[in-house]
C-alpha cells in the first residue's frame, strides 16, 4: 500500500454511521474509497449538496454536478442540493461532523496553515477557513514531511487558515491527537519508530502509553 492510501485508509476509520463529512481536494478525496461497508457516511460538497457519490463513467457525466475540486461526481439516493449560503450555514453551524484537509504546516496547539505561501502561491482560502472553524472535528490527512522538511511545527510560520482548530493529524508515520495538554502520538505505523518520528517532527509531542499500532 502506498503512503497516500495508508493515510486515507486510517482516516476512514474515524467515522461512524450517519456522520456528515467534508473531504478536501487531493489526498483527502481518497478517504471515500475506504469507508466500511456496514456504515453510511454522508459526504457534503461545499458547492451545494449532500450525499455525494463516486465519479461517473465518462459517458454519464452531468456537467451540472461537480465536486469542490470541479471534477464530475454523482449523487446518491436521498441527496439534496442547496445554495452556497445554506451550504456554509451547514458548515459554519456545526452540522458537519468532520472535515478532512491537507496542510502546508500544522503546529502543536492545532494551528493550521494550508492556503498560501506569500510571494509564491496565493490560491485563496476557498471554503477552508469556514470548514476548519465550523466542523466538529478537523482531521489532517498529510504526508509527514515536505521534501524531507518537517510540516508538524512548534509554531506555524505561514499565514494561518484557523487558530487552534485541528483535532487529529494522520500521516504515513502515525496518528497525533491535539489536546489542551499538548500533542499526543496515539498510533505508530508498523514501519516507523518513535525516534524516526521525532527526527522529522519539529513540534514537541507526548508518546501515548500504550502506543497503539496504526491500523492498515
Amino acid at each position: 500500500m502506498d503512503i497516500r492510501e495508508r493515510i486515507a485508509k486510517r482516516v476512514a476509520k474515524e467515522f461512524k454511521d450517519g456522520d456528515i463529512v467534508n473531504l478536501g481536494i487531493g489526498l483527502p478525496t481518497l478517504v471515500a474509497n475506504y469507508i466500511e461497508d456496514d456504515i453510511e457516511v454522508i459526504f457534503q460538497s461545499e458547492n451545494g449538496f449532500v450525499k455525494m457519490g463516486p465519479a461517473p463513467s465518462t459517458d454519464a457525466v452531468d456537467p451540472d454536478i461537480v465536486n469542490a475540486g470541479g471534477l464530475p461526481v454523482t449523487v446518491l439516493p436521498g441527496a439534496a442540493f442547496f445554495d452556497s449560503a445554506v451550504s456554509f450555514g451547514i458548515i459554519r453551524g456545526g452540522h458537519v461532523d468532520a472535515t478532512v484537509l491537507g496542510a502546508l504546516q500544522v503546529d502543536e496547539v492545532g494551528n493550521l496553515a494550508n492556503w498560501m505561501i506569500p510571494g509564491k502561491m496565493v490560491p485563496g482560502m476557498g471554503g477552508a477557513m469556514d470548514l476548519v472553524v465550523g466542523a466538529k472535528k478537523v482531521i489532517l490527512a498529510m504526508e509527514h514531511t515536505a521534501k524531507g522538511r518537517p510540516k508538524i511545527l512548534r509554531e506555524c510560520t505561514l499565514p494561518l487558515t484557523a487558530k487552534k482548530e485541528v483535532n487529529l493529524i494522520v500521516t504515513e508515520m502515525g496518528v497525533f491527537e491535539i489536546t489542551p495538554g499538548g500533542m499526543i502520538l496515539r498510533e505508530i505505523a508498523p514501519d516507523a519508530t518513535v525516534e524516526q518520528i521525532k527526527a522529522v517532527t519539529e513540534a514537541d509531542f507526548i508518546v501515548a502509553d500504550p502506543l497503539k499500532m496504526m491500523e492498515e
Partner: protein
Amino acid sequence: MKKFISMDEAMDMLHDGMTVMIPGFMGVGTPEALVDGIVKKGVKDLHIICTDTARPNIGIGKLIVNGQVKKLFASHIGTNPETGRMMNEGLVDVTLIPQGTLAERIRAGGAGLGGFLTPTGVGTVVEEGKQKLVVDGKDYLLELPLTADVALIRGSKVDRKGNIWYNAATRNFNTIMATAAKTVIVEAIELVEVGEIDPNNVMTPGIFVDYVVKGDA
C-alpha cells in the same frame, strides 16, 4: 411586465467601472452566454464579485484573461493561473474572502442587514482592518454586506415572470446574488411557461429578476 430582452439589449446595461456579481463554482452555474457578451462588448475596469475565476477559457476566467477586470472579490483564484499572474503584476486588485463569508456578505446585502458576526477568519490575515466583537466569550469578526450594480444569473428553467429553478450544483451563488444587485439579468437555459415551475419549487422568485435573456441549452 417582465422583460425578455436580446443579448445586445442586456449588454447595453453594462458600463465601464460597474460592480458586477457573477455566480458559478469553477464555471458550473455561471451564465456563459452573458460572460461571452461582456467579452464581446469589451467593457473595462469592472469590479467583479464571484467565488472563483474558474479557468482561463471558462466562465469568469475569460473576463480576467481579456483584461476587463480591475478589482476582484473572490474566495479562490488558484485554478486560473492568469489571475495570480495579473495580481502579481498589479493589473488586477484581488481581495480574497472566505467562501462562506462571501456568501453571507452577499446575502446580507440583499436582505437589508448591516453586517454579521462570523468566527471564520479569527486569528488570520482575514481579520485585518475589521472590527472584532466578543459574544458569549467567543471572538467574531464583523463582516459587512456586499451589493452590486448588476447581477448576471443563470437559471436552468426560467418562466415569463422571471421565476427561476436551478438544476443540481448550478445553484451555488445564483440565489443570493439575485437579491443583492440593482439590476438582475438572468440567462435562461430553458424558457418555460408560467406554472411549469411549481410555485413551491421556485428558487428565485420573479420579483428579484429585471430581465431575461435566452442562453444556449
